[in-house]
């Protein structure tokens, strides 16, 4: 019975992480792109396109950490020390960009500094998250159920590559969100950015995909042994189809489809990642069953999640709906 619960919780955790990535991804992406936006209305509109929702988006990150701690405490207690400097950098990055939402309106003379803090904070947070994904893929040294490596073990060419990929991917999400939420010159600018970023993202994704099977033979077997390959080959195929629709929709001047196709790319990426990692939380060291909290803890939370999560999704959807349409240049500031 506890076996089922561990899988249920792995699925919930996967959902939470994915929800975080697709929601906070676009507002981090707008932060990354901020320096390329023109000072004045273009920046103000970009900010207003995310101001009412960023806090809710970031809450999924808190839930991700909380759910990992609650459902798989062993994995939480291994992954966080293993990625210590990354986590600190991410937190400080999120801190700078989070306060910039309010601070930049408070003093026009200091606005350029908070805009810089917003951009740099977003970039650092995205890069740290990307490196963390790479760190988990490449493996973490575990002895006796605790992290047993140094504080810079996470650094490698592979993890830098995953870091760059996530930065590009988030920036792509941000540019396509701007296509949706703005018009005029700002939207034209966002379209130009989106095409370049899409090429960069797909190239980076391909590089990560090629490199991953070489990290460990286990990954190779998962992807290329028969009959697995019949299933796994669908992932790159769907990436191709999605990319084609993306390019077509961007050329055609569609406003929403580019964002939705970028989301689809992220989902496919996530599926690919899961194929490589499942059922491990820390590859080849800790499985979801090793790390699972006792059934009573997982069951207690499951009751809450199944009741509350639909309500959260409902009012989050409502909040997005209230602020539907194009963003304006004025805040309440």
């Amino acid at each position, binding site marked *: 019975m506890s076996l089922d619960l561990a899988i249920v919780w792995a699925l919930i955790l996967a959902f939470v992480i994915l929800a975080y990535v697709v929601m906070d991804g676009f507002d981090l992406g707008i932060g990354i792109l901020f320096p390329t936006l023109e000072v004045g209305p273009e920046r103000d509109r970009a900010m*207003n396109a995310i*101001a*009412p929702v960023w*806090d*809710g988006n*970031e*809450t999924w*990150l*808190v*839930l991700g950490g*909380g*759910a990992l*701690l*609650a459902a798989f*405490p*062993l994995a*939480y*207690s291994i992954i*966080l*020390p293993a990625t*210590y*400097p990354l*986590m*600190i950098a991410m937190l*400080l990055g*999120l*801190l*700078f960009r*989070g*306060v910039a*939402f*309010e*601070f930049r309106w*408070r*003093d026009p003379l*200091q606005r350029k500094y908070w805009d810089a803090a917003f951009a740099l904070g977003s970039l650092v947070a995205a890069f740290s998250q990307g490196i963390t994904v790479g760190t988990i893929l490449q493996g973490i040294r575990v002895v006796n159920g*605790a*992290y*047993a490596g140094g*504080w810079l073990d996470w650094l490698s060419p592979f993890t830098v590559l995953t870091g760059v990929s996530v930065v590009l991917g988030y920036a792509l999400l941000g540019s396509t969100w701007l296509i949706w939420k703005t018009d005029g010159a700002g939207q034209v600018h966002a379209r130009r950015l989106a095409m370049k970023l899409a090429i960069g993202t797909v190239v980076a994704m391909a590089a990560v995909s090629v490199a991953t099977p070489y990290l460990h033979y286990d990954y190779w077997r998962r992807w290329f042994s028969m009959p697995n390959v019949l299933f796994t080959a669908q992932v790159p195929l769907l990436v191709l189809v999605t990319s084609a629709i993306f390019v077509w929709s961007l050329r055609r001047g569609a406003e929403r489809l580019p964002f939705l196709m970028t989301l689809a790319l992220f989902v496919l990426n996530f599926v690919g990642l899961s194929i490589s990692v499942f059922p491990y939380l820390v590859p080849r060291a800790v499985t979801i069953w090793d790390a699972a*909290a*006792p059934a009573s*803890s997982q069951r*207690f939370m499951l009751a*809450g999640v199944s009741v*509350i*999560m639909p309500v959260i999704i409902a*009012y*989050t959807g*409502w*909040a997005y709906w*209230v*602020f539907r*349409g*194009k963003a*304006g240049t*004025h*805040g*309440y*500031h």
Partner: protein
Amino acid sequence: MMLDALHLARAQFAFTMSFHFLFPAFSIGLASYLMVLEGLWLKTSNSLYLDLFKYWLKIFAVVFGMGVVSGIVISYQFGTNWSAYSNRAGPIIGPLMAYEVLTAFFLEAGFLGVMLFGMSKVGKGLHFFATCMVALGTLISATWIISVNSWMQTPAGFSVAANGQFVPSGSWWPIIFTASFPYRLAHTVIAAYLTTAFTVGGVGAWHLLEDKTNLQARKMFSMAMWMAALVAPVQILAGDQHGLNTLEHQPVKVLAMEGDFEASPDGAPLVLFGFPSEKDATVHDRIAIPHLGSLILRHDAHAPLPGLTDYRRDRWPPVAVVFWSFRIMVGLGMLMLSLGLWSLLARARKRLYDWRLLHRAAVLMGPAGFAAVIAGWVTTEVGRQPYTVYGQLLTADSLSPLAAPAVGTSLVMFVLVYFTVFGAGAAYIVRMMGRLPTGEELEPPHIPQHAAGITPASAIDLPPAGVS
């Protein structure tokens, strides 16, 4: 003091947590205050309340933002610095914190956007509903996190599994509602309300000194002083009850607060002042009132009390820290009560709005709530030492397998960033508070963020707030 990873990690937690606590201590009270203001506006149609609502809403947005970002740091710090604790206590505290995120953080975040930016988009009733949900969210959040903290102080309902993890031994009720939980929750939430009341009162008083006819300043000062007069006594009572509860469950903490090193078989004195020395196991230069300690703690002047020396020395908390922080908290509490009583006198004499000395005192007491909250938190948390889970898990056994340079570097980073960022935030808040509240608040939540659902013409020519 040795600068090993343990002490650095403790310093980091104390630093980041103290900073973080300032924001919810303010935003819990402010969210409720905003709810009251908007409710009064809807009920009376008096635009004075709407002016105050808009004035404090902008300040709330900044405070809330800082609370969110400093809170994310805390939620991940359990894992980065205290991974052994996280692994062992995760099955108990993890679900409680997950419930906090699910029932509180999403609620606050989901409705915050509408509260800040949505007044012109959703109609008055729905906007008020959003404000209420944000206020409710802050209170639900406080409830869960106090539940977690109380379990760490007075753990119950658990057993220890073979792998060393604390696991629920049966029902979750005894875990959520531990012995100290109701007292701690009441004391903390009232503290947040008082913190807000004194801040609002201080700002109101500041503007009354400048212009005693300003209606908005009068209203906020009067509301704040009612809170001070009515709630400060309640808080002292709640604190007393919390103290009795602590004596029952964590006697060593109370003995350190009181500075009682020696057992007092015939009733303990109340130490007003002195310099506690753990080395000499005594309070130097002590000024004490005989028997009053027992009278307060046991409600009987001759009731015996143990002393710290009755307990293992390596299980004492740092006595001087707890002793002093407790005195700071109590001293500030008494000052708050005095100001509240003074305001009642001023009201009776019809001098509430022109007694300049009262206004000066209120300005001076503006930040008192923050200082008291931090002092109280230091008392209870340092008083829990040397344990993270009281009596069960030593702080020394809770640490991550990290090298001191890693923790030291991150500590330095946090100190630099927090002082820069939150220093700037505090400066902005003080500047906003320095602006005289007028009837012509800059149109805040009304100017639409987005044009959807509103014709371009109406977006430009929006009726002013309060006109319907």
